[in-house]
């Protein structure tokens, strides 16, 4: 594959509604993810199980393997952990500015009322305070990704 062919392929992908494209030949292995892919993977889908009466909308992006940690996680048992949920819609940030330290990391202790993150909406930066005390066990959302109301942001071990 030469540079001209790759450019042509990229143009075709860009003009299509594809969000992810993978090609593997003898001499080339190409993976392309468009801007839409990143936006798609950050959107949380609440309904993981398809209802037999409903047909899930078939869009190309629906076939993309969920990668972002913002998708509802079912890997670890969360029964004993408390949740810190977003009270608003916006973009989640781990720190108050790119060059500032993160508010909390996995393993940190938090007390009720501590600021754990920022959710920004329309240029307004909202400090999100923890309603619970304990140890941060898991960060559920990637930095700078969108969150919706009631979305789980952190898992907290109250006994930690």
């Amino acid at each position, binding site marked *: 594959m030469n540079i001209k062919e790759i450019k042509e392929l990229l143009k075709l992908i860009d003009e299509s509604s594809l969000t992810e494209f993978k090609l593997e030949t003898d001499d080339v292995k190409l993976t392309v993810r468009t801007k839409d892919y990143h936006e798609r993977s950050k959107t949380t889908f609440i309904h993981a199980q398809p209802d037999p009466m409903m047909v899930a909308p078939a869009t190309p*992006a629906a076939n993309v393997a969920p990668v972002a940690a913002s998708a509802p996680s079912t890997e670890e048992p969360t029964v004993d952990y408390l949740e810190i949920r977003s009270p608003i819609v916006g973009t989640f940030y781990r720190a108050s500015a790119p060059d500032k330290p993160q508010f909390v990391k996995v393993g940190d202790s938090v007390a009720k009322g501590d600021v754990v993150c920022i959710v920004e909406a329309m240029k307004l930066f909202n400090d999100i305070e923890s309603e619970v005390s304990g140890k941060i066990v898991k960060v559920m959302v990637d930095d700078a990704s969108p969150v919706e109301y009631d979305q789980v942001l952190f898992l907290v071990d109250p006994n930690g």
Partner: protein
Amino acid sequence: MFNKILIANRGEIALRIIRTCREMGIKTVSVYSTADKDSLHVRFADESVCIGPPSSAESYLNIPRIMAAVEITNADAIHPGYGFLAENIEFAKICEQYGVKFIGPTSKQMAKMGDKISAKATMIKAGVPVVPGSEGLLKSVKQGKKLAKEIGYPVILKATAGGGGKGMRIIWKDDEFQHAWDSARQESKAAFGNDGMYIEKFVEDPRHIEIQILGDQFGNVCHLSERDCSIQRRHQKLVEESPSPFMTDELREKMGAAAKAAAKSINYEGAGTVEFLVDKHRNFYFMEMNTRIQVEHPVTEEVIDYDLIKEQIKAAAGIPISGEDYFPQMHAIECRINAEDIYNDFRPSPGTIEFLHLPKGHGIRVDTAAYSGYTISPYYDSMIAKLICRARTREECIQKLQRALDEFFIEGIHTTIPFHKALLKNEDFRSGNFNTGFMDTFEMPKKPLT
């Protein structure tokens, strides 16, 4: 054309809008409260964003949360549906400031029609007939009598601070005026602490007939004929139809022209409905203008064969209309099926629909977001479905509706289906002989023993 539309609504209208967007290749974003997480409008949209807890104030009416959802999804237009923020001037303004296209009129156009006094003044200027009345408060019985003579009896004396029918008196003759004046003022003072009164012509046995209009961004306006919505209970529409059984070609032409003049006078953009009161002499008077898509829009779609949501989106995207008017090619009737107990004053009856079977077949359309197992929550309106029937004649339409209602099963909650079945048997309804007073004298069906 828009790339992505966020639907700032829920239920059947949100689903309706999503369907048209999919046909047009436009991506959709739905917003929902935690009470609606199992809703069809959430499932069928390309993306969905939870925006708040069940209360409308913190979700579907919450402008900052909705704008945040626009921001994180990069939607370039918002469709407000009906109700909620559809006629909220502040919301339309914020959309304009933020640079996301509000699918509907501009905030300025909305403001002109939202205020009843300014709307009336605009109509008078545009030459649209309005209910004649006093321009301000009446100073004396003498002034009132003089005005009443000009307007023509009967007139209705109304309290400016009034509501719920209080402080209102219908005056049929000149010598009744003094008594009406004294008692109305006394009642109003007692109820509202204000005895200011004004008069309007009392429109006898009015029918509620509205004209659907559509305007583009270039000053073109067209009308899509009428819908008769006279069957109302406490000002809530129950049944709508087109064409109106009371309509004549001449009246339609006059009302259509008046509705267009109303819309043109403010350069109206988008879909809108001009509501008129029509008396038994076929005099018509402007009542108000609704600057949004209406619940009963499918009635017009069925007789005109255009997708009104699509037309709204096209107008908002800057596509001009032809300016041609449209006339009903068929007859259509819509029955609003609500989760209400008709044997107990139409009390809302939320709950879970255990089993749902929708009527189908030739000429039947059902707009609904319900499904078997769906729970109608107490937080929002009680509408379950709209049953719309289309046929060549009004009689056939009624026959089809009866057939459809017989195969419409909603189990687990109370619905208004038995009311509609009884209505379709009523002689006055069948003969088209009804006005807005119909429900006052309609005999409700008896509750079945089982």
